[in-house]
């Protein structure tokens, strides 16, 4: 046995995008043990939602849990509140929620991919991926009014309709993006230098992903077919707009890249189908009821399963709101998948997990 060294990484580190702390125990440059801490950014959002804000305002508060998957939080909260109010939202609002969720998935996946490239030492690919990602931010701004933290889903429906000229703009920009996506897939799939840093690195097996309850692209890249869009359709009709599960088997950084890239293709198909089949109806279901009882909602955010629990007591303020973010579910898998990898590979592995501590610590 060689001499062991402990290497702390974070909360501030050049390869970390989030205030997360890892303590790697290494032996001959190989990681043999990992400890993690996530205690840097607790903001008390759940407490604020149950004390300072009325239940209709909470959708705007939870939109600030995370900048990237804000639409997932506002939609999941709106859905759980709608369950407590026992209301069904208009069909057009469901479609518009799916549209924004999928646009958001494109921009989140491209951000993750760009950081994997950067942390693998491929700065030019980072720049190219970020450049191509810009169109998704512009489309989100055109639909929602904001580039991030879009206050689009509200209790009962959505805040804005999709104008015909914006729908045309989305379709044109997607057409323009398709060859760029094919170019990115070609590079991430075949580039030899990138493959040295990504193939066989940060691997997790399907059995371990299942045992550690991993979610999102991290799980699907290991062959674990878990995706809320595949498991429930009572709140959003994913399958009628062309949803398809994407999985891989290798479970390494390269497989996670490929799952995300192919999920972008699925997202584009869903967006086109949503626009083609957008039903005519109101945007909001009005009600004067107060939330009563308890309910749960699961929603597939870009990083995986997002879970909301809410309890109402027939007043304006919720009794309890619990948010479980995808990264929270992936912490155990993340710690496990570092083992037996070179310490030098840690930055690319961390980026490929796509961790979000804003969501996790809330």
């Amino acid at each position, binding site marked *: 046995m060689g001499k062991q060294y402990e290497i702390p990484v974070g909360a501030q580190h050049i390869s970390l995008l989030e205030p997360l702390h890892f303590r790697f125990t290494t032996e001959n440059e190989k990681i043999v043990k990992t400890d993690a801490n996530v*205690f840097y950014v*607790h903001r008390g959002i759940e*407490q604020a939602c149950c004390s300072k804000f009325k239940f209709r305002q909470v959708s705007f508060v939870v939109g600030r849990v995370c900048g990237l998957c804000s639409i997932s939080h506002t939609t999941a909260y709106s859905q759980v509140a709608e369950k407590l109010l026992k209301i069904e939202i208009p069909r057009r609002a469901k479609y518009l929620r799916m549209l924004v969720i999928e646009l958001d998935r494109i921009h989140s996946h491209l951000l993750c991919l760009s950081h994997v490239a950067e942390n693998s030492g491929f700065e030019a690919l980072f720049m190219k991926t970020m450049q191509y990602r810009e169109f998704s931010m512009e489309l989100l701004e055109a639909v929602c009014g904001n580039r991030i933290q879009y206050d689009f889903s509200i209790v009962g429906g959505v805040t804005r309709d999709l104008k015909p000229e914006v729908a045309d703009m989305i379709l044109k920009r997607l057409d323009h993006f398709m060859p760029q996506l094919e170019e990115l897939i070609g590079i991430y799939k075949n580039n030899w230098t990138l493959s040295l840093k990504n193939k066989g690195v940060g691997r997790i097996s399907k059995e371990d992903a299942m045992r550690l*309850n991993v979610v999102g692209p991290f799980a699907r890249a290991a062959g674990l077919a878990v995706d809320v869009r595949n498991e*429930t359709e009572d709140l959003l009709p994913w399958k009628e707009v062309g949803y398809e599960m994407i999985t891989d088997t290798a479970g390494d950084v390269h497989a996670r890249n490929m799952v995300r890239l192919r999920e972008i293709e699925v997202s584009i198909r869903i967006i086109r189908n949503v626009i083609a089949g957008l039903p005519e109806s109101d945007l909001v279901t009005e009600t004067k009821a107060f939330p009563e009882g308890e*309910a749960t909602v*699961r929603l597939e955010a870009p990083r995986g399963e997002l*879970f909301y629990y809410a309890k109402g007591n027939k007043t304006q303020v919720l*009794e309890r709101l619990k948010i479980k973010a995808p990264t929270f579910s992936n912490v155990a898998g993340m710690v496990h998948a570092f083992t037996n990898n070179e310490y030098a590979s840690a930055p690319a592995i961390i980026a490929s997990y796509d961790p979000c501590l804003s969501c996790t610590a809330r």
Partner: protein
Amino acid sequence: MKKIETSLATLKNDLASFYNPAEHHFMVMNAVEMGEKMEVQWFFCDYAHPCETTCFFTLIERGEEVPSIKDIVDSAWVAEAELVDLMNINVENTAKGFVLEPDFESGPLLKKK
């Protein structure tokens, strides 16, 4: 959501007979204040379509020790550590200092301190 009542004494047996990693995944733990008592919840979900969310729950006194389920669900240590820090629940063999810094006052989400 299917709610199944359990007790601290039977919790581990109930979860062990229910939880099959190939069929369900463990999502999270939660606690809700019920006056002087707390309702502790363990959430699971099916992999199948259509899926069902199952919640095991039990009422505990404040400060009462909750058994750890780490030997049944490998990833449960994350949820248990969160509950210790944010709701000041006393979970067996679980220390403070994962979601909040170790010297932080536990239970910032509690309405009744």
